[in-house]
């Protein structure tokens, strides 16, 4: 509220100053538009209840703001879920060698804060003989895979019955029709109840204003995905919604050097993910909690 009023006051100030100087330069006009836009932006609705034209206006506004902030030509997409598509993911525990190329690719793709090294994917080095993650560690490095260890990767499992969606008091997070659990970054009030509710440690909070070097920004952005967020809001893996809705694989799947990650449409009986679910002995992490994750694990 205060921010909005301050911005409004600034807009009035700029306008007044410009009037006083007698000429309205293009820069002034732009500034006036920008602060007016931000003022409007504060009062916008929750993305999930907007009309189509409101969504388009919001996306346009975000694209403009991003282009002002970064030198690259940011393109903001608002692509919708596709009928007949439900995304699923499989992780081959026999193949992963813990290189964390997936983590690196994810960070480069999704514009996370660099100062705090925010990472959506957690790779855990596990002791052979147990599946208890408490006996594993994410704090590992190696050149060659050590004996007696295997690697367990986890990120948002895009649950069909997501506890994070249930607990959000303002409905800022919801499950889209293609199964991706998304966040309206401007609607989130930062209460972090979803972070307490998630059994997979999937959600990340911006404890400070995120910062990315200009040249590292990924310009292909989605309003519900990898647009650059602000402080005080929650974010998480979205199965690279900006890529997956364009028919591409998420960055982690592309980057994996051993082909341990498989992604596809659960509603397509010919897909690799369906082949795996039908032919491999798969399991899901913390299945007993009833979250119905769309992320399966298997071994060869």
């Amino acid at each position, binding site marked *: 509220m205060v921010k909005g009023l301050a911005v409004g006051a600034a807009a009035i100030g700029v306008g007044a100053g410009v009037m006083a100087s007698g000429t309205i330069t293009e820069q002034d006009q732009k500034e006036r538009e920008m602060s007016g836009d931000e003022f409007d932006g504060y009062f916008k609705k929750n993305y999930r209840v907007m009309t189509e034209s409101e969504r388009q206006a919001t996306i346009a506004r975000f694209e403009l703001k991003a282009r002002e902030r970064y030198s690259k030509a940011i393109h903001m997409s608002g692509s*919708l879920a596709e009928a007949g598509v439900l995304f699923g993911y499989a992780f081959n525990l026999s193949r992963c060698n813990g*290189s964390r190329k997936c983590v690196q690719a994810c960070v480069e793709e999704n514009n996370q804060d660099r100062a*705090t090294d925010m990472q959506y994917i957690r790779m855990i080095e596990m002791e052979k003989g147990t599946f208890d993650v408490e006996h594993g560690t994410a704090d590992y490095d190696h050149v060659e895979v050590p004996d007696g260890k295997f690697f367990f990767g986890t990120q948002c499992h895009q649950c069909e019955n997501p506890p994070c969606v249930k607990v959000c008091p303002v409905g800022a997070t919801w499950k889209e029709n293609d199964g991706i659990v998304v966040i309206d970054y401007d609607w989130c009030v930062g209460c972090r109840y979803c972070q307490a509710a998630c059994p997979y440690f999937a959600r990340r909070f911006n404890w400070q204003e995120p910062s990315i070097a200009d040249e590292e920004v990924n310009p292909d952005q989605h309003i519900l995905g990898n647009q650059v967020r602000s402080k005080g809001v929650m974010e998480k893996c979205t199965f690279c919604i900006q890529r997956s809705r364009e*028919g591409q694989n998420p960055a982690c799947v592309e980057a994996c050097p051993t*082909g341990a990650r498989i992604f596809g449409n659960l509603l397509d009986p010919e897909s690799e993910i369906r082949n*795996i679910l039908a032919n491999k002995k798969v399991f899901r992490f913390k299945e007993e909690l009833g979250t119905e994750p769309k992320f399966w694990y298997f071994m060869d």
Partner: protein
Amino acid sequence: MKLESVFFCTVLSLVGCGNPVPPSSEARPISEGEKARTLKELKAIPVEGHEGLWVEGRSHQLKKCTECHGSEPVPLDVPGKQAHGDVKLAHAKFMECSTCHVSEIPAVLGFGTKRVNLDQSHHLCASCHNTQGEDFILGSHGKRMTGWKGPRVVKSCVACHDPHEPSFKALPTMAHPKIIPDRLKGQEPDHE
């Protein structure tokens, strides 16, 4: 009675029931033209017996024989010289060059009576590594080159596994996680 129903209607309209989400678009299938373009770009070879599965072409990535040997026929059975003898072979103890390269022409591979070219080498690998071959067809072994929507083009076996020296080199880790944020380090009173 009327007052109660008005009250309930008001309450229900104000609260988050109904679970609205943005609508889905119609199906956006990939066009045949796009599909054909992708297959051409990757020089994809259809996998025999498995419709809808292509393997990345291999022969276009290798040098043609004529690039080194010119157009002259290559003399064979030269005493003291092994064809392409500089290639280090470390693939199972019992294997020799002729195990796979069954013909005088190195580009022709085979097992039993079957003959395959370099683009179909996956058949050869699968003749011994049959479980991996099955997994290759299934999708749990190997790497897909195209997105989930495009035609299913996978990398050939030899794209990752050097057939002469298949064991993997070490792959060092990267992107070490910051489990405890920097701003909170050094807070703990008596910890290492």
